[in-house]
């Protein structure tokens, strides 16, 4: 089979992984060196496909032959899809060629399970080793960690990769039992825990190195890095009946216990030869969007999953989770922007983290006025009922939440229809 045919099949087979991030890698440069590639912590999206998703990495499977029969997966062994397998050298060639053209910032390599978990993991490592050692490649590498593989192999993978990820896919035990009989939640968790310990230890060493840089500036004397971009995972949304509260609680648990950098949510897209029990409906994109918003509130704004959803169920599709929380907590509002703690300002719907910082800076210089919110381009129509400034008090502060909600959702029906 020609390389181009393999690429067509194995990129198609890899698109169900939502992550394409190339951020979080340490600063590396090839200036004045042999080899190729750099990273500076910032991700670069080199293109966007018409689904609005960023193309940052060459995201392919090494092979889509697979021993597992996970029902939600297009590559499950019982699926009648075309199969292909790259040699490690072919993946290296594609990565370097695309990288030189500036169409990617690195490689995200995953694979179906062939022969054994250990063998598969060794194959993935082989590609990363060729890139890093033979070709002195300093771009981004994200490797899939196969949870069932020997910890010694995860150890080796982390020395080449910027990021490792083991996918949870389904956040509940029953979900996994029904749809992914060969996967074990415990195994995935213990792989994550192992990687967390190694990442933490390497970060501690790196911090120590940074403090006594003059002596240890020689890279050979510095502590070996381990997946400096951290680990991430993915959960499928809408393949089974799991609700948003369960999904967000398990994300919260993953962030806390394994210090994941990111949890990705992937709206289940219909696959060919759909097994019985899986939805044929269009992927729930708006639900996925609300989960990302809630996830962001948990990671950046100090919200807990239980605050955003205080009972089993899903997030409100009509309004964003921050506005929903504010409408349910009217007693905490309006917030006086000239007096409130920054953490409370961050809870005002329509004010983002950057504006919080700018408002705090500004009130050291002078009192905050309503016009400042206009200048900072905050979402005025949303925040209006929730803030007090030197020259402004909301007239609808007393209005009850359901009527307020009505007035807040009315002006933008067209925007909702887009999703």
């Amino acid at each position, binding site marked *: *089979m020609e390389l*181009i045919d393999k*690429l*067509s*099949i194995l*990129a*198609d087979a890899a*698109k169900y992984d939502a992550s394409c991030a190339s951020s979080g890698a340490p600063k590396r*440069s*090839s*200036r004045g*060196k042999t080899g*190729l*590639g*750099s990273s500076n912590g910032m991700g*670069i*999206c080199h*293109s*966007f*496909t*018409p*689904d*609005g998703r960023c*193309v940052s990495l060459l995201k392919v499977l090494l*092979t889509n*032959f697979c*021993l597992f*029969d996970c029902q939600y997966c*297009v590559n499950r*062994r*019982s*699926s*009648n*899809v*075309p*199969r*292909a*397998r790259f040699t490690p050298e072919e993946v290296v060639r594609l990565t370097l*060629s*695309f990288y*030189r*053209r*500036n*169409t990617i910032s690195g490689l995200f390599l995953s694979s179906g399970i*062939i*022969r054994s978990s250990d063998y598969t993991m060794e194959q993935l490592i082989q590609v990363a080793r060729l890139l890093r050692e033979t070709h002195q490649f300093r771009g981004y590498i994200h490797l899939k960690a196969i949870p069932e593989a020997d910890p010694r192999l995860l150890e080796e993978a982390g020395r080449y990769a910027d990021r490792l990820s083991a996918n949870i896919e389904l956040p509940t035990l029953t979900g996994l039992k029904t749809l992914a009989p060969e996967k074990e939640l415990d195994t995935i968790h213990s792989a994550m825990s192992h990687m967390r310990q190694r990442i933490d230890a390497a970060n501690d060493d790196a911090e120590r190195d940074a403090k006594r840089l003059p002596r240890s500036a020689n890279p050979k004397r510095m502590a070996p890095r381990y997946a400096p971009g951290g680990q991430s995972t993915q959960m499928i949304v809408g393949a089974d009946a799991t609700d948003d509260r369960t999904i967000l609680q398990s994300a919260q648990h993953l962030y806390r216990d394994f210090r994941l950098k990111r949890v990705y949510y992937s709206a289940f*897209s*219909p*696959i*060919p030869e759909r097994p019985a029990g899986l939805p044929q409906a*269009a*992927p729930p*994109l708006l639900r996925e969007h609300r989960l990302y918003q809630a996830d962001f509130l948990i990671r950046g704004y100090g919200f807990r999953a239980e605050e955003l959803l205080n009972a089993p169920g899903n997030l409100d599709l009509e309004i964003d989770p921050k506005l929903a929380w504010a409408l349910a907590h009217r007693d905490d509002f309006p917030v006086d922007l000239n007096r409130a703690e920054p953490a409370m300002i961050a809870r005002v719907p329509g004010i983002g983290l950057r504006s919080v910082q*700018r408002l705090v800076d*500004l009130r050291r*210089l*002078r009192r905050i006025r309503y016009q*400042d919110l206009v*200048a*900072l381009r905050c979402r005025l129509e949303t925040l209006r009922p929730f803030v007090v400034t030197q020259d402004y008090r909301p007239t609808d502060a007393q209005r009850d939440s359901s009527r307020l909600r009505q007035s807040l959702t009315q002006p933008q029906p067209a925007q909702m229809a887009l999703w």
Partner: protein
Amino acid sequence: MRNASPLPPSCAAWANDFDEWRAQARRLLHAGVPPASVTWHDGNDGHDDLFSSLELPPTLPGSTPAAIRIGRDQLTLLGNAARYRADGHDQPRWPLLYRVLWRWARGDAAAMHPADRDGRVLHQRWHAVKREAHHMHAFLRFHRRDEARGERYVAWFEPAHDVLDLAAEHFADRMGGSRWIIATPHGGVGWDGSALDYRAPCPAAWTEEARTAAERANADEEHDLWRTYFVSTFNPARLNHRVMTQHMPQRFWRHLSEGDLIPELEARARHGGQRLAQESSVGRRKGKALPDARTTLSQPSPDDEG
């Protein structure tokens, strides 16, 4: 005491770039010339020498003006906002920068805050400049040229603001020992493996070579591989035109080798009812279900090439 000698009713100053502006602004500020009294000329205006003489009252001996203190963050903001190419209805850069500096030097710290009338414009411009530098890092495409001395890469790009040097530093880090040139309508830069070589205006030969390479982008096999990847990694079930164009404005599509695929992929996804995530050409290939793991583990594994 500086006001002892009468100021000229107005004076003219010009600058081609930020460093020149900075030198002029420092002198004007020391001389106490208020913003309203300065007529700034931008290098791009093609200034007339008749008006170019900057006449300032000499600083009186013994009255050394206080040093103008400006933090590194403020300098970064001013310097980067100056990279913004103002067009028709935007206010020109030098008077804006000088007004802000004047206010700042007089203790008005809010002048550089994003909520301020002037500060807001500076921050918006800096934001636009950062975004354009990022666009150039992301959407510039190198085309390979095989020569006797080895391979070389050429690129054509039309940045909306003055970000060529930011991009050059980025690509010097990224491309290692490979030689390359980047040509733009406002200047060019080359890298020979060890040093950057800036040219303004861009040499005609560079422009010619880069534009030709960009237009014949579909000449090689690598090009087909990239287009194949782009088609396969797209998920037709998730079509979202608005988000795509928000991140990748249409003005960049022309020089992307995948650019012409976008309308076609969108039309096909809509036509096919956006039902499956799988790319249709992959779906048309012959499929292969695999035997159960329990039987395969003892037999040769199913990882032979399909």
